[in-house]
């Protein structure tokens, strides 16, 4: 294992801003794994730290395939993590809206350009990311339909779902999109949580990545834990269920749970009276993909997402 500085810059009063990478093996740039880009992505950092630990052990056991290099960047944004702010400290910009970056541009464009310069030639790219909505997800691989996406390969992570989604205008500035445009096979992995560490889900993600690497002949490794035959779903087929009232949010279901049509999934309570104001009901049978995990909800906010049943 070789610890390296992927990008750095000086600050007036803080320690240098450093993006740190961990390289395993030498040779062809085979696989790059990127963790948190936003200051509240603790689960993403945790998963990468566990991957660094496991890859270090596997390298010591001589299980890496020769002439292949693996790079893990657990955190692209330590500055924001250290102040518990989701986006960039001074101007609140999102590094994952700045790719491929611009070395002479604004601060986060420079960070994106500096990092992308180091990671764009890898054959496979994996990013652990998060949505802006606070909640728990069923673990899945997300790939953007750029025309270069590889859904058969996405299935090889062995996570329960592969979600395909058509890029919207602002998606073209994400790492995933730019990786694909520059010939890296790119996958974004979502696990159960973001700002809280969920260890079982993190363990599943670590095994998914190691298993994928074994499949691509980067590693001699037998996967631990369950390997799912992923179901491939289009993101527009997911059913978003919204709260029709604001108030306390109480859910009856967890991600991954199968539900029947007409089943009650959650309810909203009046914030003053404690009485039930409305219920969120499944319009069709399916699997719960997302559940909000905040105490309260605004009106017309997505609180549950369902993947409808196959049949």
């Amino acid at each position, binding site marked *: 294992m070789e610890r390296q500085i992927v990008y750095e*810059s*000086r*600050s*007036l*009063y803080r320690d240098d801003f450093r993006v740190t990478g961990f390289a395993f093996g030498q040779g062809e740039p085979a696989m790059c794994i990127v963790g948190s880009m936003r200051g509240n992505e603790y689960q993403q950092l945790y998963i990468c730290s566990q991957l660094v630990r496991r890859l270090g052990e596997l390298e010591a056991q001589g299980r890496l395939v020769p002439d292949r290099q693996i790079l893990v960047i657990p955190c692209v944004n330590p500055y924001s993590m250290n102040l518990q702010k*989701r*986006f960039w*400290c*001074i*101007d*609140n910009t999102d590094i994952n809206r700045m790719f491929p970056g611009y070395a*002479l*541009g*604004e*601060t*986060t*464009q*420079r960070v994106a350009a500096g990092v992308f310069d180091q990671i764009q030639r890898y054959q496979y790219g994996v990013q652990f990311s998060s949505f*802006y*909505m606070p909640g728990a997800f069923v673990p899945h691989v997300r790939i953007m339909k750029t025309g270069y996406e590889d859904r058969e390969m996405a299935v090889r992570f062995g996570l329960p779902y592969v979600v395909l989604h058509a890029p919207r*205008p*602002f998606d073209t500035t994400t790492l995933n999109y730019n990786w694909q445009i520059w010939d890296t096979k790119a996958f974004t992995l979502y696990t159960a949580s973001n700002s809280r560490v969920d260890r079982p889900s993190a363990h599943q993600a670590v095994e998914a990545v190691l298993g994928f690497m074994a499949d691509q002949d980067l590693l001699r490794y037998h996967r631990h834990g369950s390997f799912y035959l992923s179901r491939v779903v289009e993101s527009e087929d997911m059913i*978003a269920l*919204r709260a029709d*009232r*604001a*108030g*306390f949010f109480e859910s009856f279901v967890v991600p991954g749970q199968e539900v029947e049509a007409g089943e009650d999934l959650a309810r909203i309570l009046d*914030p*003053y009276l404690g009485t039930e104001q409305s219920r969120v009901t499944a319009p069709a049978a399916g699997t719960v993909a997302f559940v909000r995990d905040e105490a*309260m*909800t*605004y*009106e*017309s*906010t*997505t609180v549950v997402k369902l993947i409808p049943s196959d049949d």
Partner: protein
Amino acid sequence: MIKTVVRVGLPVGEDLHIRKNRLSPQTGGPGRRVSIVTGTHGDELEGQYVCYALQRRIQAQPELLRGTVDIYPALNPLGLNSVTRGIPGFDLDMNRSFPGQPDGDMNEAVAAEIVQDLLGSDLCLDIHASNIFLTEIPQIRINELHAAQLLPLARLANVDLVWVHSNATVLESTLAYSLNSRGTPTLVVEMGVGMRITKSYGDQLVDGIFRLMAELGVWRGDVPEVRAPVVSQPPEEVAFLNAPVSGIWLKHLDHGARLRAGDVLGEILDPLRGQVLCAVTAPVDGWLFTVREYPVVDQGSLLARILPGGER
């Protein structure tokens, strides 16, 4: 007449209201419609004075109004109330949420209702105040895609600069793009600086709004002379100056200054060591139309924009 454009329930005993005031002519039909929109970014306040001053002048001679003026002072009321640029609670930039979706999440549904309410205006002015970091000369920004229709209107708005961007930089999720691409002509005004009101800029723009209203037949009174703006169009390139190092920015020249190549715009300082880290100089002769106000800079922070060339 005050109307609620959007209402959404907040968690604890409060509704979010986005309101507009509709000024209608005393006689005749509704005529053509001009919409004045601001307060999308909760830290930009220059438009607040414009909404006020425009109405005061119309109220002084209401009989001269021949069309409808809709005034939306606060598209992001929660942001304005909490010194928050984006939408509080979501950390989202509202001006990246348009055109929205009627059946989408709260923010998408709100954006869709705002667009729906503004569509059909004969002219919309979307007033911004840069941000808390930069000060801007009163200017209108137009995307090349819509320049043919918008440039003649922009010339009447009494701004100092009209900056036509190349369409490579189009942001499809802004309010202006959403309206322009649906046939409602929308001018984006940038002027002044965040968290402040520059009364002279507000009065200047109100003069321009009266000139535009007269052009559209919405106002029948006398209108002030308006200045002819400098117009910058592709392929002309604006020079961007970014901070080469992190430090404390001390500006030497104000926005609007005429520059010669080599003039010092400001310095980046290290107060811990009492040193100048670098002097920032103009790379070309030109006009300083944006300058950084906020002293703390990271490497890369924008310090200035310069329109190359001499006096025009």
